């Protein structure tokens, strides 16, 4: 680990960026996705467009560090600065290809909780959904980003802030929601896909991480790519030098990464 030239979060950013395809419309939330979109549009996805629930639409990185989607560098030379109903309407009518979500807790079907968690005897109040529930319900696919901490992986989330797949094995088919549901989970140790039944499986291990240490962190028996006929578990690509340079340009003080 000492010889790594990048941080866990930098790898999460490039892994998240690689989930953006060229020409995607990307619903960009706060924190790491702010950086991931900028990396993607600067590298393999030059025709992707970012939409932010505040009303911002961008086709290029901000020329300066952004704490939030509303920082002036993100508004300056945007394609459009419109309103939330406009952006959420794009989502609701099916025009958003991919959205990013985080969570304090996740279950095997990708249900996420960012509202209330149990901390010992006490319920701890978290900030809530923001636009996460809407993205989870309506984006064509979602990519989930979480620190790899065992307490976050639970059999049942305490509160479904952002719905994942159905638990009856039908994925999104019988789900009331319009969108396609979660397609990937990126943690600080590995990436995961969702199989045809809508259940998580291990897709790739970040460099230096073992399969056994990853699967041990889940309270259920985590499937692997082999188990669900999705090839074999691979090693997550390390950030390329050019990507790291971009990350460090977009986040010069490593505030997010």
């Amino acid at each position: 680990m000492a010889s790594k030239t990048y941080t866990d979060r930098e790898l999460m950013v490039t892994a998240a960026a690689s989930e953006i395809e060229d020409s995607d419309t990307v619903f960009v939330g706060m924190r790491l996705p702010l950086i991931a979109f900028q990396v993607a549009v600067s590298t393999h996805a030059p025709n992707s467009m970012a939409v932010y629930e505040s009303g911002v639409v961008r086709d290029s990185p901000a020329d300066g560090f952004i704490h939030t989607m509303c920082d002036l560098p993100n508004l300056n030379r945007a394609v459009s600065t419109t309103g939330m109903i406009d952006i959420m309407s794009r989502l609701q009518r099916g025009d958003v290809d991919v959205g990013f979500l985080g969570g304090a807790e996740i279950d095997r079907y990708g249900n996420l909780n960012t509202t209330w968690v149990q901390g010992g005897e006490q319920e701890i109040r978290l900030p809530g959904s923001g636009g996460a529930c809407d993205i989870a319900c309506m984006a064509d696919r979602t990519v989930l980003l979480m620190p790899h901490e065992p307490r976050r992986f639970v059999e049942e989330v305490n509160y479904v802030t952002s719905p994942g797949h159905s638990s009856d094995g039908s994925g999104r088919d019988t789900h009331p929601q319009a969108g396609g549901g979660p397609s990937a989970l990126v943690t600080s140790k590995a990436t995961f896909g969702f199989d045809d039944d809508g259940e998580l499986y291990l897709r790739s291990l970040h460099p230096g991480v073992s399969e056994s240490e990853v699967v041990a962190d889940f309270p259920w028996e985590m499937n692997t790519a082999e188990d669900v006929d999705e090839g074999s578990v691979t090693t997550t690509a390390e950030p390329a030098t050019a990507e790291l340079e971009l990350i460090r340009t977009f986040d010069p003080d490593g505030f997010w990464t």
Partner: protein
Amino acid sequence: MRYYMTGEVETIEQAVSRIDSGSSIAAGLALEHSIPFAAGHELLRQGTDDLTMIGPISDLLFDQLIGGGAVSRVRAAWAGNVSAGTGYRFREAVENGTVDVEDHSNFSIALALKAGAMGVPYLPTKSLIGSDIFERSDLFLEESDPFGGDQLALVPAIEPDWTIVHAQRASPAGDAHLWGNMGITDPAVGAAENVLVTAEEIVDPDVIKSDPSRVGITRDKVTAVAECPFGAHPSPVAGYYNRDNEYYLEYSTQTKTQSAYDEWADEWVYGVSDREEYESLVERELGITEPTIAAEVQYGQ
């Protein structure tokens, strides 16, 4: 060309004094952009309380009002500190049961205000169903699309007593030019019984009328107008100043307990008599150093 100044510009003290305790207030509508912090601090100084705060994400505004004991209810999708995560005054108040929370998603708050603005009892959405925001609430209804499609959630209208907007510039009557991202400003203005406009600059009506497509608020909704430069700090205002990111991080470390908050508020809220004095507390350079001038637009005949 004649103008009718039906409104009169007030000081922010006068304008905010129109808001009664017990009111519902929508604010922070452009998300992290142009949050009306000056009006919020004035509410605290005037001791206006028992407020219901309505908004998509509240950023620090709601946390500060909660810390000052002004809030009894929050109807929002997210409440915290966007830079640091947790809003400790919000969290503690909710965990202790002193503030009641109605959980929303950003879109459900947007649609509730849009329904109010449109004058209809509800708007339908494909969002919400399947989440506990929907399942654990008795606010929303579920229906089968009467035209034969899938299940829909119905979001009932919210009509705030007040909507507070911090604008770049406004006429004395309350017609305001807004630019930069809008969030749910427009629905919240339309839905409100009263609108308070604070503005970086009060300008001649001629300035507003030179660009009627830039107008985001018209006077018929506006009850009070106050000039308030720097009125959105620490949030950014397009064309005026950048976000004061450090302030958010400092606030987070300075408000983890109620007594720490009280100390913070003594300095930043109760210790200043107006926004000018407040501004003198801010050391960081936030001005626009790389301006982008909007391409010229002509009307005329």
